[in-house]
């Protein structure tokens, strides 16, 4: 398993073939609707060769690169969450008896394909781990959730570009993936050579690599990869001071900044939908017209909807202020108490995909500055 290897660009499709032969459904980045999204990948022709993304608060544009990099972008609107926790899942179906009771309760098979995630970034590996802890930790794990990531094969890509809203360095979740992958690639583009420096993270990874034409990395290859990592780390578009951030937010529950952000917040829920760790779902019961069968469905929900905190006689979090505060405080503070880590991996999606560009790093900094003065 040790050692660092090299795959030339021209041999890259052999990696995809090796995964396909092992029965993996490969999911990776592809261009659709003027963005880089995740979908099933058949060959390197499906990858976003030569594309990058320009990101700012509330702003994303696909841009042409001057080279043919396959992974020369930051992260897009999709995350691996859609495979770990699908947007809608049928939980069970039952027959309604004459007396109103239920019988023949059946859980539909929830087998997922064996996925290979191609192009997962360091922040995303952290997010997959955090979401796994949420779904599978605690006293009531859902075995179906475990099934989706059990045989996951991960081909990580070390970021060659940081986006304008990235702050993984602040969250200590990147840009370099150190574990949690089967193979990790660093893409290197030189004037006359396009190749990948490959780290092996598991025996399965080594087994796949053995099926792909590759060589040992020489000193120059390692240096080139190291330069990519250092450059990306220096390009972070955002930063977030996480020093005692839990205590900071707990102390500032009544800070006037929450009112200010609430004037801008649309309570549309986009930040939670694009967040790779936001896991809130609702269950909805449906009947057939004849009233003979019922089904229970689990669907993505958001703490920004009124119903999510709805109890008898209304919602606990009726105001935009209370909902934004709940979300940001959960992500950065209460998550530590609940799950032992931050809920934020610094991917920047909530900033980019907020339709009005609300930036949680800016909100947290404003609260901190009110206590400590400007940095």
């Amino acid at each position, binding site marked *: 398993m040790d050692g660092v290897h090299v795959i030339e660009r021209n041999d890259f499709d052999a990696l995809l073939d090796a995964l396909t032969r092992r029965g993996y459904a490969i999911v990776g980045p592809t261009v659709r609707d003027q963005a880089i999204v995740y979908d099933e990948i058949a060959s390197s022709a499906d990858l976003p060769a030569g594309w990058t993304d320009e990101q700012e608060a509330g702003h994303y544009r696909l841009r042409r690169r001057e080279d043919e990099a396959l992974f020369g972008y930051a992260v897009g609107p999709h995350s691996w969450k859609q495979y770990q926790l699908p947007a809608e899942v049928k939980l069970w179906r039952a027959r309604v008896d004459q007396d109103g009771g239920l019988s023949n309760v059946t859980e539909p098979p929830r087998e997922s394909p064996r996925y290979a995630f191609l192009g997962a970034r360091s922040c995303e590996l952290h997010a997959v781990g955090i979401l796994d802890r949420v779904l599978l930790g605690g006293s009531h794990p859902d075995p179906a959730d475990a099934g989706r990531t059990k045989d996951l094969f991960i081909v990580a890509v070390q970021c060659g570009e940081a986006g304008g809203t990235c702050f993984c360095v602040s969250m200590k979740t990147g840009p370099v993936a150190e574990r949690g992958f089967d193979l990790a690639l660093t893409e290197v583009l030189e004037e006359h050579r396009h190749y990948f420096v490959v780290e092996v993270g598991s025996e399965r990874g080594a087994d796949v690599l053995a099926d792909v034409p590759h060589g040992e990395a020489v000193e120059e290859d390692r240096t080139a990869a190291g330069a990519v990592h250092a450059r990306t780390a220096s390009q972070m578009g955002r930063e977030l001071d996480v020093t005692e951030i839990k205590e900071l937010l707990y102390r500032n529950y009544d800070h006037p900044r929450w009112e200010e952000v609430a004037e801008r917040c649309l309570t*549309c829920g986009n930040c939670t939908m694009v967040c790779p760790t936001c896991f809130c779902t609702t269950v909805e019961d449906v009947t057939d017209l004849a009233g003979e069968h019922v089904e229970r469905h689990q669907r993505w929900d958001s703490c920004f909807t009124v119903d999510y905190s709805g109890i008898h006689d209304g919602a606990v979090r009726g105001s935009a202020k209370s909902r934004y505060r709940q979300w940001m405080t959960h992500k950065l503070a209460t998550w530590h108490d609940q799950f032992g880590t931050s809920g934020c991996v610094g991917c920047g999606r909530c900033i980019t995909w907020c339709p009005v560009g609300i930036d949680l790093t800016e909100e947290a900094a404003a609260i901190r500055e009110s206590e400590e003065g400007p940095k």
Partner: protein
Amino acid sequence: MAAAAKKTLAVWKFSSCDGCQLSLLDLEDELLTLAARLEIAQFLEASSATVAGPYDVSLVEGSITTPHDAERIRAVRACSRALITIGACATAGGIQALRNFADVEEFTRAVYASPDYISTLATSTPISAHVPVDFELNGCPINKRQLLEVINAYLNARRPRVRAHSVCVECKRRGTVCVMVAHGTPCLGPVTHAGCGAICPAYDRGCYGCFGPKETPNPASLDHWSGLEDRDLVRVYRTYNAAAGPFRNASEAHE
């Protein structure tokens, strides 16, 4: 199920284009099952044969724009155990509520040779402005799956799965890339009531707000960010749900 247990359904039309009530006939695969559970007692678009009331459930389409209709809706309410309004006209006044921002007498003089024959109100108002309503289904037109869900929920005495959150949630659930953030296309999705399934953004267009304002909408923030001129913002909000409170306030703020 015994025939005696069948509930009766009536469909009523006020000022409207009939599109929403036709959604009922559009339920081709479910219509027979529906007819087995409900006696369709009054539905003039489907049959001129009617059964006298009272009715268990009435679907009401259209807005109130004439003195005659303002009286008629009271009679409909009186003969209906449950009253469900369907569509933007019935829930918000519809496109014809554009009259609320203008001089209706001036319109009648311009349009009709003998305006004296026209008996119309100065405003187009939703059904809920006249009688109590048990459930409102938004949309111009309504989504037929949602109509079926409301009827299904009524028949099975459960809460309808009709959520009032943003269209954005529907876009994200189906994996649609945000047209506003990624393309710079103006979109009302963040202030608009879900229900259509986020059709327009899936076809590369911004949301037109056909389903009216969502719960807790914040048009002022969206408008400020959009960079659109006041004139355009007035037009954006003055379509099928022009008179719905938050959209009306939004358009008036830019006049």
